């Protein structure tokens, strides 16, 4: 649940979601649910030459299970806070 809570903090920020099929989509994080399904707005495909048909997509629902990485905005990452949170989550089981 930690990453769910953490991603919720990032709502409204720009993230890049990289899928297991190598497609990378950049957009504003609209929402995220407990399965880490991700909704993006104002999306654009990072590698537009490779995926021209995705060019125009404005809002997008990405299934959590197909996500490989989520690239976070550097200013949205509080390393100390995350450190503490992971430790706390670990102890709580």
């Amino acid at each position, binding site marked *: 649940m930690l990453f769910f809570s953490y991603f919720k903090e990032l709502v409204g920020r720009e993230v890049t979601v990289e*899928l297991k*099929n190598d*497609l990378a*989509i950049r957009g504003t994080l609209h929402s995220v*649910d407990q*399965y880490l*399904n991700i*909704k993006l707005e104002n*999306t654009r495909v990072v590698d537009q030459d490779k995926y*021209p*048909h*995705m*060019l*125009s*997509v*404005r*809002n*997008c*629902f*990405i*299934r*959590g*299970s*197909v996500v490989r990485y989520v690239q976070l905005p550097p200013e949205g990452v509080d390393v100390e806070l995350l450190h503490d949170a992971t430790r706390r989550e*670990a*102890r709580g089981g």
Partner: protein
Amino acid sequence: MVEGIRDFTAIVERDGVHQPVLDAQNGEELMHVQPGVSIVLGSHPPESPGTLYISTKQVIWLSDTNRAKGYAVDFLSISLHAVSRDPEAYTSPCIYAQIETGADEDESEGSDSECNGVLDLSKITEMRLVPSDPNQLDSLFDVFCECAELNPEPTEENEEEEHNWIFSADQLEDEATGEDSEPSIAIGQSNGDHDLARTVLELQINDQRFEDAEEMEHETDSAQR
């Protein structure tokens, strides 16, 4: 299991309307019906208007003209879905969906999805649903989102149980003792040993028999001398 798009043939006619048969016994429910929707599979031409049925488990499209024809895809196989409105991407506003297929990615590239005029559904990785009324797109998108959220990965719970992270030495010891006792019982030493013992016993019996035979031979040998 991920299987991509498939033909859908479980169609019944009720009150003059043909509709899909859902797996009601396993809790499948119809969430939304959208008439006047064309379907585009991969880069193939659109198929004549049909009706879209969205259930809690899958997206079903039934042709209006050919009453035996339909396609279905489970929400489990839909990697992403989006609203596409840019005419450069597709001539009509549509719901765009990427489909995860069981096939290898290299094989699933669109060009080979048609062989001798027969559509190979297992190689279709993209689907577009084009409603005759573009104003329906947003509500369709929302229904897609709602139903996708109803279909998390089926293995998720098991994985969470199995993938126990280790955070302290205490936990390690607990796990170690647990592993010492449990697997040995689970693998079944008694079973294994029992079988082994019997095999050894049989071998010994055989050995004794051979020994006897040899002795007999010796005896006959000596008798002949």
